[in-house]
Each structure stands twice: as structure tokens, then as C-alpha cells.
């Protein structure tokens, strides 16, 4: 396979994952806004923070009005991570690597893009927002389903999965970090009802409120949620889960290609940071520091993979 093709697959799936995560964030913010009694738009501020696009946002707007934030996250092409930008990049990468995709996967991505281009041609009204968010989730599910159902389990598949899990790990770490960072200034919040709402919000933004409920009942506490999203290997969006998947896909590539690559050592080292770890230790050492290091590791790992498999020459 061409290095360029591997890179195209990797980025295609990173951007598809990003689309979905952005939609989840909007959904979480929207629900909170609907159920909140007080005023102020600080929920949208923290969501813009989480998406890592605050600087870009502030170049355009001087407040965190819901309509602005939603528009910016959904369809503003000045925002490279907006749903519309992301699906555009994903689809353009899919065109680039078309020869490596099954017809079903290509058509699913192409249809996703056509649907979104039409749905996001104009600002989305409050009334239509739930429908649009639902459409994003279901179109993503179709792409994921065609990938699972029609693609060979070979190197092509591995590069798709690497993109997916690197992006997802990055996203989960950011969500946790920003939330915690927002809460940090007033230590008195910890354990308060305000604090619980924030943690609930986190669970919602990764569609994990029900899974969490199964495991922990109604007991939403900071350590329980952090443990769930960082260390629980059963949870498909946790850092430990994503990193194991990355390691597994790299191993599969090694079985196929032969030589062991530097990125594998790096991935192993990352996984070691999660194994046998207790969430109390993470809090002890500082959750923020832990997450920051995790995001950094992730970026490094991506660039190792890029080099080892010659994405760019």
C-alpha cells in the first residue's frame, strides 16, 4: 500500500470520529441548556473549550451565545473541526484513497457528505437541531458498519482503526481535562450538586450515561467517572480501551509487515501507564497533569506512526 494511502485512511477516520464527537458535544450542551434553570451561557463556553477551538471562536464572537456556538461547531467552515469541515475532509480523504475502500464504505461516506451538505446549507433552527444531530450519529454508524462488514482485516483496516482510536483517545482526554479545569478554581464545588451536574454532562458527551449507570448505579462521583473514562477497559471510549486498540492494530501490522517499528515501543509504553493503575493515584498525582501528558503522548504516537509508515515521504 502507498504511504499516502495509509495516511489518507488514517485521516479519513480521524475526521469521521471528530464529526461524531463534535455532534455529541453539541448534544450534551443542548441538553444541559434545556434543563438548566438559571441563566448565562457558560455551558457553551466550556464546550467551545473542550473542542479546543476557543481562539478561533473568539476571533469571530465576543460572547458564548448558544446560536453562535452551535453554528460554529456545526457548520462554520472557518472552524476546521466543525461537523461540516470534518465531513468534507473525511470525504476528500476517502476520494484520495478510493481504491483502498470497499464500494460500500465509499458510498456511505459520500452519502454522509451529501446529506450533511444539504442539512447544513443554512443555519439549523432549534427545532431541527435534534434531527440533524441524530442524522450525524446514524450516518457515522452506517460508515462504521460498512467498514466492519465489508472490509478485509488487513493493513488497510488497521490504518482506519488507528485513526479512529487516536482521535477518540484525544477527544476523551480533552473532555475530561477541560471539565476538570473548569471546576478546579473553586475546590468547594467538588462533591457539590453543581459538580455532579458537570460530571453527568461529561458522561452524556461520550454517550456513556447508561453504561455508567449499569456499572455504578446512580452514584456519580468524580473518581468513579474518571476511573470509567480513563482506566476501564470495557468502556469503548476510555483512554485505556483506545490505547489497547492502537497497540493491537500496530501489532497486527507488524505480523503483516515484519520488522518491529519504533511506534510500537511507544504505544507499549503508553499502555503500561494504564495497566494496574488505580484512579486514586491519578488524582494524587493530579488529574490535569495526567491528562495533559496523555494528550501529548497521543500526538507523539501519531507522528511516530506517520513516520514509520511513510505517510508523507
Amino acid at each position, binding site marked *: *500500500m*502507498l*504511504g*499516502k494511502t*495509509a495516511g489518507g485512511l488514517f485521516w479519513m477516520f480521524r475526521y469521521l470520529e471528530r464529526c461524531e464527537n463534535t455532534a455529541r458535544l453539541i448534544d450534551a450542551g443542548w441538553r444541559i441548556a434545556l434543563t438548566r434553570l438559571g441563566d448565562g451561557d457558560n455551558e457553551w463556553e466550556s464546550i467551545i473549550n473542550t473542542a479546543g477551538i476557543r481562539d478561533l471562536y473568539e476571533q469571530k464572537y465576543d460572547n458564548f451565545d448558544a446560536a453562535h456556538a452551535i453554528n460554529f461547531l456545526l457548520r462554520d467552515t472557518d472552524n476546521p473541526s466543525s461537523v461540516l469541515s470534518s465531513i468534507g475532509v473525511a470525504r*476528500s480523504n476517502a*476520494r*484520495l484513497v*478510493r*481504491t483502498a475502500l470497499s*464500494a460500500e464504505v*465509499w*458510498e456511505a461516506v*459520500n*452519502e454522509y457528505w*451529501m446529506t450533511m451538505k444539504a442539512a447544513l446549507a443554512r443555519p439549523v433552527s432549534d427545532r431541527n437541531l435534534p434531527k440533524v444531530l441524530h442524522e450525524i450519529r446514524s450516518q457515522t454508524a452506517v460508515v462504521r458498519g460498512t467498514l466492519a462488514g465489508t472490509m478485509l482485516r488487513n*493493513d488497510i483496516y488497521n490504518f482506519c482503526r488507528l485513526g479512529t482510536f487516536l482521535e477518540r483517545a484525544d477527544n476523551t482526554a480533552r473532555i475530561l481535562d477541560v471539565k476538570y479545569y473548569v471546576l478546579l478554581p473553586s475546590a468547594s464545588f467538588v462533591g457539590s450538586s453543581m459538580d455532579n451536574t458537570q460530571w453527568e454532562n461529561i458522561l452524556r458527551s461520550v454517550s456513556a450515561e447508561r453504561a455508567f449507570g449499569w456499572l455504578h448505579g446512580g452514584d456519580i462521583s468524580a473518581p468513579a467517572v474518571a476511573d470509567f473514562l480513563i482506566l476501564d477497559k470495557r468502556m469503548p471510549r476510555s483512554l485505556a480501551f483506545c490505547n489497547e486498540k492502537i497497540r493491537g492494530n500496530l501489532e497486527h501490522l507488524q505480523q503483516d*509487515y515484519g520488522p518491529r517499528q519504533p511506534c510500537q515501543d511507544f504505544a507499549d509504553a503508553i499502555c503500561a501507564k494504564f495497566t494496574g493503575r488505580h484512579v486514586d493515584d491519578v488524582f494524587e498525582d493530579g488529574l490535569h497533569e495526567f491528562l495533559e501528558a496523555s494528550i501529548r503522548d497521543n500526538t507523539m504516537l501519531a507522528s511516530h506512526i506517520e513516520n514509520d*509508515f*511513510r505517510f508523507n*515521504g
Partner: protein
Amino acid sequence: MDTQSKFFDEMFGGADTPRSPYSRYFDWFESEDPKELRKKSLEAEAFFRRIGITFNVYGQKGADERLIPFDIVPRIISAREWQRLEKGIEQRVRAINAFLHDIYHRQEIVRAGRLPQALIARNVAFEPKMIGVNPPGGVYTHIVGTDLVRTGEDEFYVLEDNARTPSGVSYMLENRETMLQMFPELFTKLKVRPVSSYPQSLRRSLSDCAPPAFDGDKPVIAVLTPGIHNSAYFEHAFLADQMGAELVEAHDLRIIDGRVAMRTTRGFTPIDVIYRRIDDEYLDPLNFKPDSMLGVPGILDVYKSGGITIANAPGTGIADDKALYSYMPDIVEFYTGEKAILQNVPTWRCSEPDSLKYVLDNLADLVVKEVHGSGGYGMLVGPAASKRELARFEKKLRARPGAYIAQPTLALSTVPIMTKKGLAPRHVDLRPFVLVSPQKVRITPGGLTRVALKEGSLVVNSSQGGGTKDTWVLGD
């Protein structure tokens, strides 16, 4: 529909009943509900969009990807008609390859006084770096798209020999795929010769021309594309996919140990045959256009030393040069010893003073083409032009007569398309696709029928509002 027209209609031929190749189709058509058929047209469009069969239009901001409109009424050619076309095309393509070999070697045709020396020596499409070079397998034009037009029952003309990088074959294949999906019952009623083996034939033809340096059991083939923004990118990806070749851009390639190698996830792998979809001048910045970002520096030297096959060979553009076009009947005769089976359109070379005078006097009746133009850009259709356009073109002609040729406005045949008001005749042309290997010339039965969708229009180019039709060659 109005069957009394000065143009030959391929379905009705001026009568009320269809010509024989169309009779079965017409029976079927008459028995169908027109409303349902129109619905099928919309279905076809949705199908094309979903598959992503689009092309990019140059010079139009915002409108980046467009569909070529597809008409659901097929163009049908009888077995007898096709036999003659096939023979004529094969003869012409063989002559073109012999001609290319000759002008890059001994130039016998010039020595024999059949072709003016200046037409070669001063032609920008002539590539001096190809002099004395022997392409692997002796093939210059692996892929040719011969543009044909029809004016009557037995009158076919060659309009252009596309010997560089003819495009459109993906539409031929997808059009058929679409028709098979929409009207499967039609294919049980009529024996239509299949076109689906084209990608395998292309692969075989290219493999048969592997370079001397090839030493594996299966040549590695790659399609070289200018990239995702090229108007024909869909086709490049489609062909690579269908024949199991890699789709590469210049930045994926590097020259290592006298071979052209592609950067893969495992390292660099040599390529044996490159089907390039970029023009000569961009192919090699060291040997041609120095600022080309699309090419591979030094690829021509690898080619000359037998390290790679380039299809089509560099320098083949001279064969479809419009300045040479008018000599084609002589060229065919010179190399095959036979009269040309397919006719040329009468052509005035504006470089000759008498011809120029005639062209200027009759500008309003003629089609004037730029010698090096393509895609319908920069041409004048006299009968359709305004006084101002004519005057402007006259100036251009006087300033650079050598840059133009002129032809009579051909009475292009029509084939009906499906409109809101039912069948309506529209002008068409035909581009059959020809594959050349050292052993064999393979012509896919049919080709791409382009149709001018605007009533009365004679311009079929997709960049100028043309559409396409599926082309059926009948089996008996």
C-alpha cells in the same frame, strides 16, 4: 416527434418507423409508461451522485464537482455498422503507431514527400527527446479514443484521433452499469455486446508492454494522476481500482537505482508500467517543463534506459495534432498500403494563403478550431456565432493563421433523448476506446456517446453542457 429534419436521425432515419437496430427497443419503449421512465431518469442521477461519478469544471468557483447528465435512451449500433467501424479504427490506429515510429526514426514519410518537414520540425507536439527511442513492445499509443461523427446511413467521419490521454472510458462503463441496474429486462430482449472487460483488457495490454527491466511474474502497474482536483480524477481512481493498479501522484514516486519506485508503507517498490494521465510537458521537470509539480524528475531517462514503460509514450501528441489531421488519409495509405476505410472531415489549413482566404470568406458557415486546443475551448462555430464573435475571430485568424484549421459545419446525426415532452432528437458523437498491445488491437464494442442536450446545439463536450448515453453494439 418531428422526423422530417435535415439531420440524419439514428432511431428513425427520416421515417415514421424506427430503423432496424432500434425496432425492438422502440417496441419496448412504446409499451412503457412515460411517467415511470422519467422517474428512472431521476433515479439515474441519484445513482451517479451516490457513486461519486463527477467531474470538476475549470474556472467556476464554488461549483467544484458536477455530474455529466445521463440520458436513459441508448444509442444503438448494428453488428454490420460496427464491423466496418472496427476495421476502420484498427487500420487508423495501426497507421498512427507506424507513423509515430517513423517520425521518431527515419522519417520516411517526409523523405517520400508526403508530409511537409516543417509540420514536424516546427510542431510543439513533436518531442525531439523521443528521436531514436524504442518504446517497450514497440507500442506508442496504448490507449486511443477515436472521435467519430455520423452524417448519414453509411457516412462516418473521424473527427479527432485522441492519442495522448483520452478520457471518458469510466463513463462508458458506468453508463452500462446504470442501464443494467435500471432496465435489466431490456438486456434479455436485445443482444447487447458487453463492455465490462475493458479494465482487464487494459491491464493485459499494459502488462504486454512491460519494460526490459521487469523481472517478476506480474508487472507492477500504476496510474499516475495529477491529483484529486483534476477534472478526470474519478476516472483515474476508477481505472486503478478496476484493474488492480496503484493510483499514484508524483510525490509518491522517486527514482531509485534506475527504476521508478513508489513510496509504500513497507518502503519503496519499483513500478514496471505507468499509465500516466498527465500531459507530456508535465511528465518530467528535468526534461520538459521545469516548474511542473506533477511530474517525476528524470523519469524520461529511466524510460529511455528501459526501466519503465510510459503509456502512452511521450511525444504521441503529434499524431492527434490538428495541423496534421488533414494528412491522415495519406498517412494511413502510406503505412498500410490501403485506402483509409474511415473518412476524414474536409479540412482547410489556415496556414495556406488560399485556404485562409476561403475560410475568411465563408467564416459564418465553418467551424474553426485551434490547432492545439481541446475540450471545445477556443473554437468558433460559425453558424451559431454572433457578428461580433465572427469579427473577433477574423482578427485572430489574420494574426495567427497557422494556429487554426477550419472544417465545414457537419450535419451531425441525432439520437432522441428523453425530455418532458417525450423523445426529442439531439446531436451526438461517438468515442470508441482502443487498446493497443504488441500482439493485438482491442476495440471495446461501443464507446462513449456524447450528446448535446440543448436543442439544435452541435457542441457535445461535457464542459459545454453535453451529456452522455449508453452505447449498444448489437450482437447479430
